[in-house]
């Protein structure tokens, strides 16, 4: 259909009305992270100001912050890797043997409120002396990552025709062999989706770390939250750390945009 210039202008205006409010909080965060405290609390708010890197230098100069950054990476990467390890075979089995009940069981983890696990974990991990340990934190984050892996991957495996592994099995390979050497290499797009999404969810998680971690294993979201509890909020520092924590997730999204959209929307579109 041909569109007139008038229609195009209206569409452009509507587009801006959608995009500007969506992106503005991010822009404001970015701007504020380069402002001095005086400019942040200035009234009326300043759009033009002297750019300073002090907030970033301060945030990255702190030993603690780098440690939290490390912790977030360690916990996120380990939780995702272990979830793939136990989740991929489970997803394959669900797809090939039609184990729907198993699927529901694992999806319940995605539906339940996190605190309902957290309270018992708190008691159990305290008794086992695992509070403030990577073990406890990684286990808790696996409960975030595993449902994503199973959900995304069982749907993906279902799209692969059975002939794939059947022909290998006729040649004498076992089914588990066929899974590893034929199915998995063909599943890269699914694995990318599952890995990206579950890493982002783990990276962003606040509640589990808030309860299970202390000085040693604290992750980035906690660091940012703690920034707020000082009497006088250092807005510049907070904004610089907010930018820092969001950057990895946003870069991943930029690289794997197609996969992220697919993973986020598949729940409602196809079931």
């Amino acid at each position, binding site marked *: 259909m041909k569109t007139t210039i008038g229609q195009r202008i209206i569409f452009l205006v509507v587009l801006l009305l959608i995009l500007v409010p969506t992106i503005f*909080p991010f822009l*404001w965060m970015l701007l504020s992270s380069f402002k001095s405290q005086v400019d942040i609390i200035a009234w009326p708010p300043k759009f033009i100001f002297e750019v300073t890197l002090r907030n970033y230098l301060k945030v990255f100069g702190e030993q603690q912050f780098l440690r939290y950054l490390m912790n977030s990476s360690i916990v996120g990467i380990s939780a995702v890797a272990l979830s793939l390890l*136990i989740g991929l075979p*489970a997803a394959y089995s669900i797809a090939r043997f039609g184990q729907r009940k198993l699927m529901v069981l694992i999806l319940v983890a995605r539906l339940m409120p996190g605190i309902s*696990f957290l309270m018992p974990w708190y008691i159990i991990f305290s008794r086992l002396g695992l509070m403030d340990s990577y073990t406890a934190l990684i286990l808790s984050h696996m409960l975030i990552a595993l449902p994503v892996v199973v959900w995304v991957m069982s749907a993906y495996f279902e799209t692969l025709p059975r002939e794939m592994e059947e022909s290998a099995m006729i040649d004498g390979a*076992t089914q588990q062999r066929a899974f590893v050497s034929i199915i998995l290499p063909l599943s890269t797009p699914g694995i990318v989706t599952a890995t990206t999404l579950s890493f982002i969810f783990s990276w962003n998680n*606040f509640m589990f770390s808030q309860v299970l971690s202390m000085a040693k294993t604290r992750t980035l979201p906690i660091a940012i939250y703690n920034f707020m509890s000082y009497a006088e909020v250092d807005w510049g520092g907070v904004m610089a750390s907010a930018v820092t924590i969001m950057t990895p997730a946003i870069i991943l*999204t930029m690289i794997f945009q197609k996969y992220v959209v697919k993973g986020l929307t598949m*729940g*409602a579109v196809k079931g």
Partner: protein
Amino acid sequence: MIKSGFFEKRLRYLFPLPAVLFVLLLMVFPVVYTLFVSFSDWALTSGRPMKFVGLGSYLKVLREPRFIAALERTFFFTLGAVLIESVLGTGIAIILNRHFRGKNAVKFVLLLPLVATPVAIGIVWNLFYDPTIGFLNYVLNLFGLPQSGWVTASRTVLPSLMLVDIWQWTPMITLIVLAGLAGLSQEPYESARVDGASHFQILRLITLPLIMPTVLTALILRAIDALKTFDIIYAMTGGGPGYSSETINIMAFKYSFEYFDLGTASAILVFLFFLVLLFSLAVMKVRKQFEL
């Protein structure tokens, strides 16, 4: 050879086994444990051992005005935010459902609120909402409107938090509906055009009915998450001022990890389970209805 044969025959049990054990240990056991604790009086701070009180904690919670208020707030927050998100999100999706240059860039912008760390989002909005230095009061000022206390005043705190939720999650509905629209068959559209239907008629009589099941599923899935909203509320207000933005989830968290009153906390959590369960059953029903 014999060994791998043994493995292969039992593949359907052995492959899911590690994941099942994990889920049993880290999810099923804790949930059962929570249920068990909910029938007891157990406060870690009191130093007394756990005592079985039957339905005592439930009755206590139901008689607690703070709980009833939190329940009402949870419903208000969830229904209000999710309905607005659904209408807005679907509308935006219908507008964006066409070919135009830069569509991928637009989708990328829509993804930003979905992948950004919620705690950090909450804190950025706190700067926006700040009554003395915040950008939003500046905007109100520009238009000659009275300033608002936003999250610092008990009258405006809940709508302010809902606004953040709406900002964050409307794009989710948009992306889901866009994916749904892309999957629609073109046939009814072609015949409608042949019959000379107007844009509005096509939208009302074809697009909306066809996309409804997707919107409904998205809405309920979103509602399940909204019921459990934690990070944003906890980071922005901690349930305050007073209790004026305390939802069930926040209340359960406080009873667990601030007051260490585990019996009461568990009873609150069981109520939350039921809400989530109710919405989950609704999802299944919608799916069955429309054979999704």
